């Protein structure tokens, strides 16, 4: 089912239509118009539940960027979304739709906690890199199995990755409860990491500069996220393997004639994708929580889909889109405090609308804009 595997088929459609419009319209005006539509649709939902959308928007923006605390939470959430957005994008470039970021990020916590807790006799300069690598490896494992099944057995990657989300969800409850929970402790979580944790900004300011920052989970992982974003760009557009990966995504058959093995690329792409999603565990387990807890991913894997589509599968776009979603998450949290009858699921609605308008209905404005352009040119 080549056509099911992702954007490859549509890419072709878009390609033929491209060239009619200047680049700045393509990467600037069209996404903005689509975003505007998504916002209008969101406002309709707010009206539907009897809230004033402008007032809510105001609360959200003030909650996210009106204070130092808001900003730090924004960047903390954005760190997760950069990882999951990149994960979705790498798979997209290979023509695969990985909606298993949630499970991959969750399962990766196992690697982070096993190394961080099990090897904590090692000195931290050795332990932390090992824990980071373990997170990526466990995430990669949870991605590579669906990748392998897609490549070798033709299993529909969307269904398999979704199933792996459910499996990870049950498995982690079991493991955290029976393996990691210290005897006699009520809360279903592991013991605290004593040395393999990543410093938060608050702690750095306190220890090294004797300065008090508001409490926030923002930690040094945010720099890792930016570094990884650059690395993904370099990989996709400057390395041979990245070129092969994109070639398979654009046209799997043609790439075969260029001597590329699509099966191998599919497996590699899913391993990389899962590994990127797995880095969420670094931000959460090693950085923010300092322990392995239940359901710590909190939907970040699914946000990655919206982030990747919005960022047009380019690392720069993904970083920007991740910040926007960081704003939505942080602002949304403030909104649930201010408005009793709005819950966090509003964010899921916004995600859905953004995926709809920026992904599936991406081309809605094109004919109209093209007509407008030719009119102006005449």
């Amino acid at each position: 089912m080549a056509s099911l595997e992702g954007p490859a088929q549509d890419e072709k459609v878009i390609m033929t239509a491209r060239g009619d419009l200047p680049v700045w319209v393509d990467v600037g005006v069209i996404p903005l118009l689509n975003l505007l539509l998504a916002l209008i649709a969101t406002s309709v939902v707010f009206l539907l539940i009897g809230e004033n959308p402008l007032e809510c928007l105001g609360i959200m923006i003030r909650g996210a960027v009106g204070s130092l605390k808001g900003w730090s939470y924004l960047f903390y959430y954005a760190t997760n979304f950069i990882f999951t957005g990149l994960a979705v994008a790498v798979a997209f470039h290979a023509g695969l739709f990985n909606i298993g970021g949630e499970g991959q990020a969750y399962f990766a916590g196992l690697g982070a906690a096993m190394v961080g807790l099990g090897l904590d006799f090692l000195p931290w300069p050795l332990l932390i890199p090992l824990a980071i690598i373990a997170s990526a490896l466990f995430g990669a494992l949870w991605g590579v199995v669906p990748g392998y099944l897609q490549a070798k057995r033709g299993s529909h990657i969307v269904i398999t990755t979704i199933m792996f989300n459910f499996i990870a969800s049950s498995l982690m409850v079991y493991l955290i409860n029976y393996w990691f929970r210290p005897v006699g402790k009520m809360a279903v979580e592991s013991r605290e990491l004593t040395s393999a944790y990543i410093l938060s900004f608050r702690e750095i300011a306190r220890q090294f500069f004797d300065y008090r920052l508001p409490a926030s989970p923002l930690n040094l992982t945010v720099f890792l996220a930016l570094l990884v974003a650059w690395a993904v760009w370099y990989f996709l557009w400057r390395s041979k393997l990245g070129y092969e990966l994109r070639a398979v995504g654009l046209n799997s058959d043609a790439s075969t004639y260029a001597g590329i093995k699509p099966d191998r690329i599919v497996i590699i792409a899913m391993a990389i994708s899962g590994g990127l999603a797995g880095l969420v565990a670094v931000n959460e387990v090693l950085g923010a929580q300092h322990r392995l807890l239940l359901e710590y991913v909190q939907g970040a894997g699914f946000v990655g889909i919206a982030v990747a589509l919005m960022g047009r599968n380019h690392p720069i776009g993904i970083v920007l889109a991740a910040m926007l979603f960081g704003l939505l998450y942080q602002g949304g949290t403030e909104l649930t405090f201010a408005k009793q009858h709005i819950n966090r699921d509003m964010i899921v609605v916004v995600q859905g609308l953004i995926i709809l308008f920026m992904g599936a209905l991406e081309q809605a404005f094109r004919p109209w804009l093209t007509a407008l352009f030719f009119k102006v040119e005449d």
Partner: protein
Amino acid sequence: MLEIFLGAETLSSTVRMSIPLIFACLAGLWSERSGIVDIGLEGKMLIAAFTAAAAGAFYGSPWLALLLAIIVSIGFSLIHGYASIHQRGNQVVSGVAINMLAAGLAVVIGNKWFREGGRTPPLSGDALFPVLNIPMLDAWGGYFRIINGHSILVYLAFVSVAVSAWALAKTRFGLRLRAVGENPHAVDTAGISVTRLRYQAVIIAGVLCGFAGTYLSVALQGSFVRDMSAGRGFMALAALIFANWRAWPSMWACLLFGYLQAVGIRMQGFKLGAVEIPVQFTNMLPYVMTVVLLAGFIGKSIPPRASGVPYSKDR
């Protein structure tokens, strides 16, 4: 042990658990046979489940609940149809959007209406569907419980299988619809509208997802809880692939998934020797089996040739 795997209780529960899968799987069948891939079965089922449970709580009539669920589900179908048919958008992306939209909206609106964090009040009495109970079979009990004493929707599901199989194989409409899924250009050349047929297919899918969701919340559970579809839409897709896009085999595949769910429920707290099987593992069972079945250790399945491919006249 044998009781868990082959007992009347398990097999009767198998039938009940497989009903939402059967309706959703038929929805997928109609849609994909016309060339529209439907990843959004899950979302449509979920929003229909919510609509039905909410309508049941407000109006106390299961039939009105079903009607409203079908209307809402068709609405979501048409969004998917518009994106896939008119906009020639990516059908998988559109389906994922529908799933998220449904999951979010159900809880947001449910919370607004009932103030219970997205839950709906439990339904009972007249708000539930009538149960078909043949006194003679009821008196015999035992294995007759497999076919007797279910909600009326259960029997409707099996009727839908028969109707779908017949309509797709024998009617002019069904043949044309299948042709559109295989070779839309040929159908277009014959002067039949591809767009119209595909919209008809997604509307049928919407109706069937409406049934699936209504059964889930009103008949099976008696209320709506968040994310209650729990991957059933995807299992239905897996069953469809497993069944090679045919109606009767789809039903058997869904019964298999229903059986796994039923066994999973029955195994909770079951002791194998001295070791109790953790509930997490029995919960995992249907998902693991979906992966295994999809990995196709049963031979190759061939999807409709034009499925997932947007149709444009100029190619």
